[in-house]
């Protein structure tokens, strides 16, 4: 690297750590250029970062690569593709990478070829050179950062002419204000005049100089303002004119929209899109070939909360419990571990001064632990969560991917089989060449379980197992040899259920460990947020509460 080249346009040394400047997308137009048939580069506009020597090299190689008598207009080299169009004695060309979508590039080229005659005087070297900058401006409108824009020739002409109605309006307003002020100034001046005349009767000498001084100052302040910052100056505020109303309408729209439209998960039926017979067949055959196709594609629960939905409620409280359970295959619990958290998320700084009143279900097996910054006494005495230092607000904003700040944690461990929400019974029995496996589940009445998926590992099979009876639905993942039994909802109507399937003879240990996934909306702790107490007075802010029980690792071994 050369450090002594401040003047050279080709050399720049960036001392600080150099991060390559953005490579936005894999499919881009690197440059749009016009070269003469002899190879002279007339105009070239690059849309990604590349060195001068590189682009000049690419363009210099181009005329040699263009063969004659070919009926297609693209050339590929090891690294790039040129898509070109002869325009009289010139070539109009796009340099793209080889991944680039040829159909799109041809569209772009067609558009450019319509533009060039619009702007160039004549389609020869001279004409292009004269209008080089106009062409560059037009190219910029067609391709932004290497991506094609959907524009027409008429639109581009409009963009390049830059005739703006708003600017005219703005100028008129300015003019009228200036005129108005001039009037005021004149009036003031004449008033001063009058008073001067009055005074002048007394003292005739100083009057002329004073008048000229006063008016001159006012004039200069005008010109200052119109040149300098338009936003802050008195007249300049009109630049917000027309804009301020927009902001209003936008924000009111977003407020007025029911939050559910964004937050509501897709309908339970899953994707309906053009589910014609054909698509279905296609999917079926893909599945048969072992591709994993998820029919119900839903945004991931964990992510969606933080990312998908821009939080509309100023304060959100999330109660989440995760279950870690190991059940023995012949009954009994080998491990039951529950971890819960209460998360608080505040959108705006001004809502930070609050305390949270909660209610716990009184489950004796659960021990609560507060965040070190919390006022422990307040919690143990009144079940109120607040910071030790009442003057400090809660942290705000969507920090990272966690859904807010943890206020409270709790844990429960047990070996009591009665509290397990779902027990699985699996009976493989060998009969002749086949193994008959019957599985049944039994759910405790405490919870309504949603989207239950029971995954049973199978011996490696070529075909799906023969399912003889099932409550719910099943699916076979041939790649991982897993049979998935899914039940959308387990409530009082189906506290127990079973399935039976047949596979070729196999050892019974093959079918373990069975893993289970589900979620529920009520929790073991039964923790509820009762109220939010604002510390700075005023009405309690609106808050939203979410409660969820999910499985982390729930297995039958």
């Amino acid at each position, binding site marked *: 690297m050369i*450090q002594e080249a*401040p003047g050279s346009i*080709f050399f*720049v040394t960036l001392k600080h750590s*150099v991060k390559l400047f953005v490579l*936005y*997308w*894999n499919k*881009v137009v690197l440059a749009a*250029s016009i070269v003469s048939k002899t190879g002279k*580069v007339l*105009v*070239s506009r*690059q849309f990604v970062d*590349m060195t*001068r*020597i*590189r682009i000049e*090299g690419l363009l*210099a*190689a181009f005329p*040699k690569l263009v063969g004659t008598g070919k*009926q*297609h207009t*693209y050339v590929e*080299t090891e*690294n790039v593709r040129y898509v070109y169009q002869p325009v009289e004695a010139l070539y109009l060309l796009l*340099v*793209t*990478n080889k991944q680039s*979508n*040829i*159909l799109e590039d041809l*569209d772009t080229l067609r558009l450019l070829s319509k533009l060039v005659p619009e702007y160039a005087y004549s389609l020869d070297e001279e004409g292009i050179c004269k209008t080089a*900058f106009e062409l560059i*401006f037009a190219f*910029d409108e067609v391709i*932004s*950062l290497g991506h094609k824009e959907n524009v027409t020739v008429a639109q581009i002409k409009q*963009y390049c002419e*830059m005739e703006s109605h708003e*600017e005219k309006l703005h100028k008129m307003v300015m003019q009228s204000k200036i005129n108005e002020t001039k009037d005021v100034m004149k009036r003031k001046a004449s008033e001063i005049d009058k008073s001067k005349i009055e005074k002048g009767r007394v003292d005739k000498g100083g009057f002329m100089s004073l008048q000229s001084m006063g008016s001159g100052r006012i004039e200069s302040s005008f010109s200052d303002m119109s040149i300098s*910052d338009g936003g802050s100056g008195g007249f300049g505020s009109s630049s917000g004119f*027309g804009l301020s109303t*927009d902001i209003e309408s*936008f924000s009111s729209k*977003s407020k007025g929209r029911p939050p559910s439209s*964004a937050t509501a998960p897709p309908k339970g039926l899953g994707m309906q899109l*053009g589910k014609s017979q054909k*698509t279905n067949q*296609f*999917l079926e*055959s893909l599945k048969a*070939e072992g*591709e*994993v196709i998820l029919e119900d*594609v839903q945004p991931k629960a964990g992510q969606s909360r933080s990312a*998908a939905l*821009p939080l509309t409620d100023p304060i959100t409280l999330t109660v989440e419990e995760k279950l870690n359970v190991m059940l023995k295959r012949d009954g009994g619990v080998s491990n039951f571990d529950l971890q819960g958290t209460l998360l608080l998320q505040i959108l705006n700084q001004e809502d930070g001064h609050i305390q949270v009143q909660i209610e716990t279900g009184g489950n004796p097996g659960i021990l609560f632990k507060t965040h070190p910054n919390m006022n422990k006494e307040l919690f143990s005495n009144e079940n109120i969560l607040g910071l030790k230092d009442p003057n400090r607000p809660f942290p705000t904003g969507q920090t990272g*991917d966690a859904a807010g700040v943890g206020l409270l944690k709790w844990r429960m461990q047990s070996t009591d089989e009665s509290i397990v929400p779902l027990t699985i019974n699996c009976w493989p029995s060998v009969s002749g060449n086949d193994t008959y496996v019957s599985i049944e589940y039994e759910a405790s009445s405490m919870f309504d379980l949603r989207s239950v998926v029971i995954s049973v590992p199978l011996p490696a099979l070529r075909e799906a197992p023969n399912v003889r009876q099932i409550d719910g639905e099943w699916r076979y993942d041939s790649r991982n040899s897993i049979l998935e039994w899914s039940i959308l909802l387990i409530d009082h109507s189906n506290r127990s259920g079973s399935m039976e399937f047949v596979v070729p003879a196999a050892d019974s240990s093959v079918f373990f460990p069975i893993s289970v996934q589900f979620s529920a909306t009520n929790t073991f702790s039964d923790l509820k947020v009762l109220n939010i107490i604002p510390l700075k007075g005023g009405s309690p802010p609106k808050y939203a509460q979410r409660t969820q029980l999910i499985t982390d690792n729930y297995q039958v071994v």
Partner: protein
Amino acid sequence: MEKSCSLLVHFDKGTPAIANEIKEALEGNDMPAKIDAMMKAIMLLLNGETLPQLFITIIRYVLPSEDHTIQKLLLLYLEIIEKTDAKGRVLPEMILICQNLRNNLQHPNEYIRGVTLRFLCRLKETEIIEPLIPSVLQNLEHRHPFIRRNAILAVMSIYKLPQGEQILGDAPDMIEKVLLTEQDQSAKRNAFLMLFNCAQDRAINYLLTHIERVSEWGDMLQMVVLELIRKVCRTNRGEKGKYIKIIISLLNVPSTAVIYECAGTLVSLSSAPTAIRAAANTYCQLLLSQSDNNVKLIVLDRLNELKSSHRDILVDLIMDVLRALSSPNLDIRRKTLDIVLDLITPRNINEVVLTLKKEVVKTQSGELEKNGEYRQMLIQAIHSCAIKFPEVASTVVHLLMDFLGDSNVGSAVDVIVFVREIIETNPKLRVSIITRLLDTFYQIRAARVCTCALWIIGEYCLSLSEVGSGIATIKQCLGELPFYSVSEEEEATESSKKDNQVNSITLSSKRPAILADGTYATQSAASETTFSPPTLVQGSLTSGNLRTLLLTGDFFLGAVVACTLTKLLLRLEEVQQSKVEVNKESTRALLIMVSMLQLGQSSVLPHPIDNDSYDRIVLCIRLLCNTGDEIRKIWLQSCRQSFVQMLSEKQLQETQEIKAKAQISHAQPDDLIDFYHLKSRKGMSQLELEDAVQDDLKRATGEFVKDGDDANKLSRILQLTGFSDPVYAEAYVTVHHYDIVLDVTVINRTKETLQNLCLELATMGDLKLVERPQNYTLAPESSKQIKANIKVSSTETGVIFGNIVYETSNVHERTVVVLNDIHIDIMDYISPAVCGDVAFRTMWAEFEWENKVAVNTVIQDEKDFLDHIIKSTNMKCLTAPSALDGECGFLAANLYAKSVFGEDALVNVSIEKQADGKLSGYIRIRSKTQGIALSLGDKITLKQKGGS
């Protein structure tokens, strides 16, 4: 790190604008003059001037201008000026432009706002951008979509800057909100693109929550969606199940660009047969529905890729692919045939051949100019079908034989070669082919086809009747003897004067040629290109083709006729019981041969018979007069044997090639495994490393720097000055594709400070210096690294020379140290390549530059010498190794290479071993440009001595 270059404008050096003039015009009030001056300033900047004095003028007089064009030019100016000092800090005066940019961002004119936002996308200096951020964010909510579009892109660019996440941390949130409410297609695309680049999870979430509506989105947005899917699935293969449905739903959208993209994505995500089939079907549809040749060719490329990985699926689609033959473009047809030929199976061969036959028939009716070439292509395709599946040969061979008389010599030759191969490999067809050939022989017009057909007749006429009709056919085609009458002779001498003129033209255009076996020869006067002069043909129209050709002086054909007759007579002796008949035929044949000799020695023809043909005809005459068993065996069996051998060799070679190809795709068990993440990661951030496909873009923008072996590097260091010179300099030369980088280390060996030290370089050949030399000051005994870029635009040996100029404090004259020349080696630019025999010979005939180098070497063995030349020139030997085998004292071979600039380099080596054991001969180099021929010649002269 070199600065990137965002625009190039041609600059006419004839009218250099002077900085002062520009300055005056900029200060003035005349708008057009101001605009003009601004343009000149930008052009000067692009050409390497720095114009520091203009900056303040522009700030003072141009910045406040209301004119829109001026404002846009100003942005271009700001785009290309140097905004940082040597240490990478932003120049303090740049703060001055911030105010202006801010005003522009709040300008009432929406287009000014838009172009300013677009300019910000190209700005990388955080210090300048930071104060502008509030204004940029305001524009996200502007009423006008043109502004929103650009504002979103600006936000993306800023966020992607090294410190972007600090100064604009909540950008993804904002853009996500924008995305939810945005209605404008383009702005929506940009917003999604921003999330895709900056917060991929959010983009995925947005996609999944709006999954039902993806097919209704605009095509631009759909393209980004596909790109996103590809990226997600590359990093996390397990997730692809979620996305395949989206792709399938997008396969039915109206935009062809999206469909094409979908197919590509599908192939990259899944290898399940259904997915591949869907993709291949899509490609086939595009192939038929798109009328643009470019699209067709590229789609065929995609199909070709699919073919190599999923041949079995494409086999089902073979008829769809074949439909692309309806395009009149030859390149498309050729590619289509190439693909189809690889997909042939016993099940579809009949269908394919049927289609090909139909196409052949079509070429007869239409009067398109390219029909001949196309027919040739089809015939070759059918030929290779027939070799793979001999059972179809019977259905096509008769059809093809109609084309023996084709005016396109190429396709006629292909047909006869095809027939020759089939008659040997398919003995069942022999009788019918021979009958047919004898029937159509009179139609054959070209000498090359005639010779081949005669050989077949001589070799494969076995039964009495066949031999008889064979002899009869030849006689008929030769017409009445003698070939000329004495009375004609006198007329002819006169007319031959005229012919001489005609022939002299053809003769002068006649050039040495490369024969098929690689020997270098002067072709005997009348090749098939010079057709019969009209005066001599009188009367021969009735008599047949052989006579016509003979009368044009093609005595090689005469020799072939003589041989064929001899062969037929030898066979006749075996099959004909009656000695009388044999002798009768024998005398007739002798008469023909003698007439031919007579014709050759007469003055009717402009030039007499050549020695080779004469010898051969005389040999035939002797043979017929005195036959023997030994001779008979040679003539009747050995010829056939060597032909069979040739065929089997050809087959062997093909299978070997296939084997070699198959081997390439497999890695050896003990091969090294390249871990991508451990590879050179110079200048690449972690994120980009993850994305292998981005390499493509990097290669395209030339960002890939290969990390050479350090040891290798050392061997390329060139010493430029002597050790005792006051300045020592050495250079390390890196040759890239289009440029050469010189890393010069300069060391001050004196105890004095050297001022204004300058490395001045000059070039010879097609090299161009990119930048002007800089002046440096060098402290006593310190060193300095100087880098120089040189642009290369064609393949030839270039020389870089130069000197180092400096001043010392006490002597005010400038001192000059002359540097060693740096020779740029042509070998860095050419790489071995393969081309077909025919292509090689056409190029050889076309190219204008020839460099002939006499062989002068110490190497004793022909083969060793050839290897040495191949090694030292980095070329590929096109002549088959089997042709080079054996110890005959002669060797002829063709070499071929291609340069990175797409130029061809052809070399022919013809050597003979002298009696004293030395090699003699010539190496001829031909190329389109002088540079290659000269440089390669120099190289060979230098290296051919060998020894070391």
